């Protein structure tokens, strides 16, 4: 489902042909993703463990077939076993380091100001070592993206908005408050 504002959509490369991509997929101009209408819900419906399910619930049998499809030969199985042993060894080292060092492992950088942040990419204002850490750790903090007082004002605005609209089901369902829209510019 997409909205076209009444204009005809045509693309020079994909209008009439469906392309076979390198990964073997057939790709057509409008990717036919399922659009299942979603029931109004809560966060519990998203997490199996919050909605009374258990993580050990088995999947249908076709998932066994999926595994057998992914690994079809003895050679492949052996290669995976070898990799598994290596990965477990690496995990032993990594987890030990995390247990030892804790939150100091997570890189923190100072926001360089809007002008630099908007016009330059991250790797232009963050040093190589920190960048390497960010890529390894996968998580980072940027300090001072907006002034503290402004952030507190956003919170105040939102709380007033909730008070003015008491039918709202908790803070999770406010999508389009003005302060959220003002944040779009921050990347």
């Amino acid at each position, binding site marked *: *489902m997409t909205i*076209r504002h009444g204009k005809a959509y*045509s*693309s020079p*490369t994909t209008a009439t042909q469906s392309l076979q*991509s390198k*990964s073997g997929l057939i790709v057509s101009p409008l*990717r036919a993703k399922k659009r299942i209408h979603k029931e*109004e*819900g809560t*966060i519990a*419906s*998203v*997490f199996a463990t*919050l909605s009374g399910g258990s*993580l050990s619930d*088995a*999947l249908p049998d076709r*998932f*066994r077939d*999926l595994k057998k499809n*992914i690994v079809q030969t003895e050679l492949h199985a052996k*290669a*995976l076993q070898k*990799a*598994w042993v290596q990965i*477990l060894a690496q*995990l032993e080292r990594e*987890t030990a380091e*995390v*247990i030892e060092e804790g*939150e*100091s492992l*997570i890189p923190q950088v100072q926001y360089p100001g809007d002008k630099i942040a908007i016009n330059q*990419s991250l790797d232009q204002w963050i040093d190589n070592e920190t960048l390497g850490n*960010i890529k*390894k750790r*996968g*998580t980072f*903090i*940027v*300090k*001072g993206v907006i002034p*503290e007082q402004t952030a*507190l004002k956003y*919170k105040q605005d939102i*709380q007033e*908005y909730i008070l003015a*609209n008491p039918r709202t089901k908790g*803070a999770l*369902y*406010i*999508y*389009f408050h*003005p*302060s959220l*829209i*003002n944040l*779009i*510019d921050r990347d």
Partner: protein
Amino acid sequence: MSLFHAPAQSNKEDLDLLSDYQLVSLSNPLSYCDRLRIRRPGDSTFALGPHIDGGGVERWEDDAFRGVWSNILKMDSKGEIDWKQYDSWSLGPNSERLEAETDMYGGAGACSVFRPLQGWLSMSSTGANEGTLQVLPFLQSATAYIILRPFFRHIRELKDCRGGQNEYLAAQNWLFDTDDPHFQGCTLGRNIELDATTHPHLRLEETMTNIPRVEPGDCAFWHCDVVHAVEKQHCGKAEQDSSVIYIPAIPLTKYNFDYVLAQTSYFLGGTPPYDFPGGDGEKHHIGRGGMQDIFDARGQRAMGLADFKLQASTSKAERRLIEACNILI
């Protein structure tokens, strides 16, 4: 988002083989309307255990998504698995991340757009034991492990290991197996949840790490494959809350752009975008944002309301993508 790279579109000869849906512009952000969280002290209903967003069993079941992990799952030319070549920040040799179907089962909380980075802006001062974000702070070996985990099962249970956890976790206690349909942590239509039973080698009870204290105005970001959780307890002072706004930027891809166009029309009508549970949303709310709040060209572009600009430095791939999107505005 410039932390990511798209190897498929840097090779100019192969560009014609890519459809518009395989292109990405990481420097042109779109806005994805996401939520905010305000958590009061004593509130443990919001605690979320360790999980990864953006697809559960789809990681293996969807062909394109599975292609993202080729270095981990497939043998190289030498018949080995060279998992150390896996690059979490690559979109895939054939831009598999952009084509990956992350929601095959219509999950209530699933996100249909590709979000390489998740993040939020803090509106409070929050540290340990105050309901903050926790992460597993390393990517490559954790991802490799998570991808291979369904193919291995333990021989002896933990309770039967006289050597305790060390014996349980040792490689000798794990056997390759494809007879079990379990994909640990996955149930249909949900993201992947992890714990000491599903992913014991991650030692999550000891390794889930609080992010450092954040003040109002600070932002936290994490890669889409990072195992993360929200702390169980919020033991902070009574008047302190732990409040964040999820940051709504996503990279420009054809699919994301289609989504944003639809989102924009919902925005003008006030109901939640289709990624979110349905209902009337904010249709009747006072003070709901409107056109006057998208105050400049960047904001308007991010909502699909104004053309994206081409610059001299725009790559050929991005140029084609931008032109395809501008036609639709």
